[in-house]
């Protein structure tokens, strides 16, 4: 093991560990119980769980077919589509929020104005908007993980299954998806974690209202202005949540 690598690796770990350590130390442990059981925190927690889980689910349902098309299909412009899918990952989240407004805003949105005029449907300032913002930024992660999983599969196993009389749907359910278990879990966890932490797009597109759009990151941000210690406490909650999920799946799926 080259010594230089070990040093750099340690620096890398420190880079991630130090801010977490700082938060751990700054958190007002005496007040934590009271802060985390406050209405603000509990409401934000409930909303975050709903938003992140819904976003991850949508990312999977839409992402799997897309991953399939990218992994197995051949069509002109595939490279372009893949680059497009990756865009939300590199976009500043606030810009993503502005983009969502431009598409789904009630007044000036491409689709949004049509939805509002014809159906009276408004997306902004709703929980659905928070879900949409979270899905937008986490979708690429799901697609990339699922595409990698599909590429890694031995398609001949699917051929074998069909020679054994399995319909295409049965092959998908009983061969393809089970064999992709770890990759599916990775896709879900990654997109869920990203959705949980989404801030910029949410605050720009969905707004900030307790119980409707104020997810944990937004609650932290608001608290940071008035009561920083409370913000630290709620941050610990967020981090603890994500950590717990990742750890729980580690033994089973994420190797």
């Amino acid at each position, binding site marked *: 093991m080259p010594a230089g690598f070990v040093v750099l690796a340690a620096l890398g770990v420190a880079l991630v560990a130090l801010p977490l350590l700082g938060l751990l130390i700054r958190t007002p442990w005496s007040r934590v119980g009271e802060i985390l059981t406050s209405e603000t925190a509990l409401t934000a927690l409930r909303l975050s769980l709903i938003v992140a889980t819904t976003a991850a689910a949508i990312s999977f349902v839409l992402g799997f077919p897309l991953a399939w098309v990218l992994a197995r299909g051949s069509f002109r412009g595939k490279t372009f589509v893949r680059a497009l899918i990756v865009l939300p990952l590199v976009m500043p989240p606030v810009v993503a929020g502005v983009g969502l407004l431009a598409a789904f805003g009630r007044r000036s949105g491409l689709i949004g104005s049509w939805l509002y005029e014809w159906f009276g449907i408004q997306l902004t300032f709703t929980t659905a908007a928070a879900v949409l913002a979270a899905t937008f930024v986490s979708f690429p992660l799901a697609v990339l993980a699922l595409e990698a999983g599909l590429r890694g599969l*031995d398609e001949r196993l699917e051929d074998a*299954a069909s*020679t*054994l*009389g*399995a*319909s295409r749907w049965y092959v998908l359910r009983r061969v393809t998806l*089970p064999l992709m278990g770890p990759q599916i879990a990775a896709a879900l966890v990654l997109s869920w974690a990203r959705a949980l932490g989404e801030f910029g797009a949410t605050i720009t597109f969905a707004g900030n209202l307790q119980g409707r759009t104020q997810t944990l990151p937004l609650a932290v941000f608001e608290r940071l202005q008035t009561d920083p210690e409370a913000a630290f406490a709620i941050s610990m909650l967020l981090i603890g949540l994500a950590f717990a999920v990742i750890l729980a799946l580690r033994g089973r799926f994420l190797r």
Partner: protein
Amino acid sequence: MTLSVDVTIRRGSFAVRASFDAGRGSTTALLGPNGAGKSTLVSSMAGLVPPQEGSVVLDGTVLDEPAAGVYLPPEQRPIGVVFQDLLLFPHLTALENVEFPLVARGVARGEAHDRSEHLLRRLEVVERARAKPRDLSGGEAQRVALARALVGEPALLLLDEPLSALDVGARARLRQVVRDELGRFPGIRVVITHDPVEAFTMADRLVIVEDGRVTQIATPEEIRSTPRSRYAADLVGVNAVRGFLEPIDEGTGRLISSEGALVVPWPEWYVEGEVLGIIRPVDVTLWPVRPEGSARNVLSGRVTSVAIENDRARVGLATAPPLVAEVTLGSVERLRLRSGVAVWASFKAVEVELLPP
């Protein structure tokens, strides 16, 4: 019930064309060198690779007929396939693998379980029913794969190199098991193999595929007596010399190959091009000195190998062209045949059978 195959399959620049029939209860072996196109043919029969031309008809049902736009996907074909790499599902146990085709077709779990267990028992591998494929030995995995292909009681059984992945010991043990199962199987069996012993022992008929074409369809005996290609000849252990013909005199000619020339009878059908000359080892006589007599092919050379088989010996000769002679053990003693000894070999012109290219 018959299988009728008459297809052309194009893959890239390679085309495979084959035409053969197989009847109920028969075993047809597709034999040929690597890359000949055997796997492509089997994939086509399985429905994994649609042919460009021709048709595949099983028991009156058209499985493939591109001209009429007919293509039955694999899951609708009454087939069972054992793949060269077995392709057992790694996430299922041995038993679940065998149950798979039944459950996929809607058979009740209980019945599927019983039928699968029964088959695994017959193949003497039931004690591994709960093991995952990665924990099975080569021979065990092969039996499970066979059970999985058979359990659905298909009309057509396709086996792709069923024993090739095994070591010699396992192969010998398994050969008998496979033979028994095939013997029991009431449908049509098509086996791909490159092992002549497998082909000759398992098959009623051999379809020899070389370079995308069928070069011979015959029973093992017919091939043994009349191989129609270099590959087939090598297979059955006869001498095969390829070359051009040149006339000598009335009714005879010279077969000129890159390794030597032979005197042969002039074939009536010859127009031009290369021909194959087959000389049975048993027709080659060995002499200590140059023989007298009317045989028109007399060659000299050193012995390169002596292989005893039962009560005969096969003697390799570094003649021009190189030959194998089959002699009695007595001759081996009398001529003191062993590697390096100089001998003379002779055979008549008429003992060279010529085949068109």
